């Protein structure tokens, strides 16, 4: 496990990966266990849904019904999952760079014959691998929940649903990562990435309700996640690519910035 920066970084995150993966996985599994009873009382829940103000519905991912498995899972978990996962992504991203600089171990790392860009890329790859692992555990847990309740959703779709929050969460993490590469201290990186994730979620919820806010909807980045529905219509590839493109852009910014900065513990 000490063979490369990537492997060591991934190994260092093993406990967090398991903790977050199993925690979110358990949440998904138990949420699914309640689905049959919600479905049975479908009319009651849908009436309740109709009584919700549109503002509240917007925050539940604008679901149309609680009685479809997509509506139920989106409303009760998937609409806000990237926000929860962003806590891990932002914390890990900043820790990988700023943490190592502040502790002074970056000095040791960069005193070895390894270029700075490679340190950044290997650490980023470890972040992507960790987030993917958490999302896979999450998807597998939903698959297990689906089997338990006898759902007809195929296992591959559950996995895809588990992986669907990955591009958005990765974008939040990459913004934090790029800022950690560029500036000293944690505050700027954490604050900006958190503002993007939470602010984007709120703005996206409010945007459809106001003429003034509507043009901002697509800039919230959250929009490019919530419009895809792997359990119902499948993912929207262009939206996924837009999110991944955003991550790539911020990764490049991080690479350039880290290559130029002073390393001061």
């Amino acid at each position, binding site marked *: 496990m*000490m*063979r*490369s*920066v990537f492997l*060591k970084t991934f190994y*260092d995150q093993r406990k967090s990966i398991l903790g977050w993966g199993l925690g979110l996985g358990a949440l998904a599994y138990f949420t699914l266990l309640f689905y049959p009873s919600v479905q049975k009382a479908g009319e009651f829940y849908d009436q309740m849904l109709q009584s919700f103000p549109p503002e509240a519905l917007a925050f539940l991912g604008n679901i149309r019904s609680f009685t479809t498995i997509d509506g139920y899972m989106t409303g009760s978990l998937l609409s806000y999952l990237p926000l929860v996962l962003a806590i891990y992504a932002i914390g890990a991203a900043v820790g990988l760079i700023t943490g190592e600089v502040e*502790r*002074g*171990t970056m*000095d*040791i*790392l*960069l*005193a*070895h*014959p*390894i*270029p*700075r860009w490679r340190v950044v890329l290997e650490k980023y790859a470890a972040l992507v691998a960790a987030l993917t692992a958490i999302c896979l555990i999450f998807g597998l847990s939903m698959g297990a929940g689906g089997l338990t309740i006898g759902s007809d959703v195929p296992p591959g779709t559950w996995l895809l649903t588990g992986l669907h929050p990955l591009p958005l969460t990765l974008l939040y993490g990459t913004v934090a990562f790029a800022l950690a590469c560029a500036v000293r201290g944690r505050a700027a990186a954490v604050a900006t990435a958190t503002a993007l994730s939470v602010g984007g979620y709120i703005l996206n919820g409010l945007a459809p309700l106001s003429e003034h806010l509507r043009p901002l909807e697509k800039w919230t980045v959250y929009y490019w996640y919530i419009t895809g529905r792997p359990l119902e219509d499948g993912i929207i590839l262009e939206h996924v690519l837009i999110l991944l493109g955003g991550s790539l852009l911020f990764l490049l910014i991080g690479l350039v910035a880290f290559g*130029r900065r*002073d*390393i*001061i*513990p």
Partner: protein
Amino acid sequence: MTTPAIETEGLTKYYGRSRGIIDVSLQVERGEIFGFLGPNGAGKTTTIRLLLDLIRPTRGHAWVLGLDPQRDGVEVRRRVGYLPGELALYPDLTGQQVLEYAAHLRNGVPQKEIARLADRLEADLNRPIRSLSHGNRQKIGLIMAMMHRPELLILDEPTTGLDPLMQQVLYELLEEVRRDGRTVFFSSHILPEVERLCDRVGILREGQLVAVETVADLKRVAVRRMDLVFDGPVDPEPFRAIPGVREVTAAGSTLHVAVQGSLDPLIKAAAQHTLLNIITYEPNLEEAFLAFYREGGAQ
């Protein structure tokens, strides 16, 4: 012609408005042990971090083994071993794991050399870093810096935390490095270790290189302080007349003396009386280079 191990030209670093180093021009030859001296905050660590490309100069240039640390950083670091002043290692890993990681980053290092250094420094490689004392961590850092037998060793205050016995072992290891024709550049604020090891020293004060001298010259001007304890009160006057003696104060049967250069005349004069004890104090670096100014030795 071989290039110098280290060469800097007008090397300057500001952190925002605060001073790091100013116009440092220095040449360290291959095969020498060069001591980089100065009080804390003088800019020793800044200079070292510039040589390793951890920070970038505001002005001026540095060459390490003839290479530009910014352009050829990977090659420089392949051929250099570095011990930071404030060594930080991964607390959850054992010494062995830390060294394995470092060895992989160097595309392999002979295990035999790691074992030899660990044996010489009596380093415990099997305990997690977090359970090691400062001195024992320092040993892991030293092995990491030396295990690939670098052409140039850059050590920032290497004896910090080492017990006197291990300091001696380190001195021997560094002398071996010199015997192999390799170069050592180390910072220190302890004059005796510099006297013991170095061929030449550079003295840094408030970010500026104020002198580069041979150790012999530095010894010549170094001021030593000592207490001479006699069996009864002794007249201090004759001692004041001894060449090299800068200060004499009497307190009961003890004379406090500051002496520069050879101790021989002072000891001979003291031996005229019944001398019970001599207590010596570590030579003061600040005094040493202040003496340098007085003698016009500063460059």
